[in-house]
């Protein structure tokens, strides 16, 4: 694990009260054995069977009870769970760190299926704000429209909305792929750091504003580019990957990719001069 290495010599910065430790030794080789046996099971998760299916009616439940019940069903080995009557309840299906086939027959409120790591989720309705925020892995398919902050801060996995989405889609995205079959609102990809966003329709103003890295593909019209978002040429690798991804997403497989615009970071914001200007002055 990480440990701190302290420089013995006192520098000017140190004498001013600033720290001069260098962070080293973050390697974890001592835990690592490349000849580990083949194992597709994360420690502490439930061993579920996708063919074992059950229904759960959450009409009379609040979100806490419903989420606890989903966990209980997974512990009994159920790999496919169908949620009936979600009725726009908030925070349903959050924190599932397991492989699972989860189907919602209806719409979700805000923060639906947040912080998930592994499940395949299908929502046969709409979703509110911040659907799948902080998602780590898995696949989420929404059949209708989504609210704003769709996929906020996601780190991995595939998040698909077959309809249109609101503003700030993929805000602070750190990985994974967001796919939108319809249109997207303003500030899509705002402060995006990594990952990919695909929009088959039009997108609003300030696309990719202050994006640090990552890629945005737009099939329709762009309202305007945000600060430091620039157009980049499409490559064969992009088109091959897009074709495959849209097939997986069950939308737009026959899309005309020649009309698509690829947007990346101009990297003009790649400087650290704004950080701690007073301390920096003192240290030099």
């Amino acid at each position, binding site marked *: *694990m990480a440990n701190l290495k302290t420089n013995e010599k006192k520098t000017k910065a140190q004498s001013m009260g600033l720290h001069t430790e*260098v962070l080293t030794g*973050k*390697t974890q080789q001592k835990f690592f054995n490349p000849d580990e046996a*083949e194992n597709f099971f994360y420690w502490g998760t439930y061993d579920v069977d996708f063919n074992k299916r059950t229904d759960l009616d959450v009409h009379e439940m609040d979100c806490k009870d419903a989420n606890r019940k989903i*966990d209980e069903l997974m512990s009994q080995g159920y790999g496919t769970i169908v949620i009936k009557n979600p009725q726009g309840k908030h925070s349903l299906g959050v924190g599932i760190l397991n492989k699972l086939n989860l189907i919602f027959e209806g719409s979700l409120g805000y923060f639906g299926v947040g912080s998930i790591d592994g499940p395949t989720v299908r929502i046969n309705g709409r979703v509110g704000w911040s659907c799948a925020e902080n998602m780590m892995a898995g696949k989420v398919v929404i059949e209708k429209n989504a609210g704003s902050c769709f996929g906020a801060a996601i780190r991995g996995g595939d998040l698909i909305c077959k309809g249109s989405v609101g503003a700030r889609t993929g805000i602070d995205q750190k990985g*994974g792929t967001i796919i939108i079959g319809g249109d997207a609102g303003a500030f899509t990809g705002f402060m995006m750091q*990594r990952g990919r966003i695909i929009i088959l329709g039009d997108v609003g103003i300030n696309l990719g504003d202050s994006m640090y890295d990552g890629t945005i593909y737009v099939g329709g019209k762009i309202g305007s580019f945000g600060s430091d978002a620039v157009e980049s040429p499409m490559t064969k690798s992009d088109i091959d990957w897009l074709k495959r991804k849209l097939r997986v997403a069950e939308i737009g497989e026959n899309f005309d990719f020649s009309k698509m615009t690829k947007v990346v970071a101009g990297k003009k914001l790649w400087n*650290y001069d704004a950080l701690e200007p007073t301390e920096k002055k003192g240290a030099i």
Partner: protein
Amino acid sequence: MAKKKNKKKKKEKEIKGQLGKKKETAREKMIGQTIGYRYDVNLLPDYSRITPFLKKYIEAMGWDDLNWLEDVHMGYEEDRPAVFDRNANGWVTIPNKIKLPNNQQDRDMIARELLVKFQMSPNHPLVDLKKAYRKF
């Protein structure tokens, strides 16, 4: 005596980052570390190079593609090939006995395979943390 002091200073610079390995900018010289990545973090995976282990993993998880592993690449830690483990928030360096190909696509596939094996291993540091702090 003066020569020995100079040698010590050079060693300290090597520990701090990757300076001296490429033509660094004035800003990098000032802060003493490299800005940006030394590999392509946006490289899209070439599915023709997927390993049999990864195929089995995808099938076991019920996905259609590499999913979150699309964002995993072979990087570097202290000038050694390594893969970043987000669950442990640290770099896992690749043992010397593993020979790595020059092709970044193949290197990334190896990184993905090793990372999955590591995360599912009972030796993973998260196992102890979960045992100690897990609430439900």
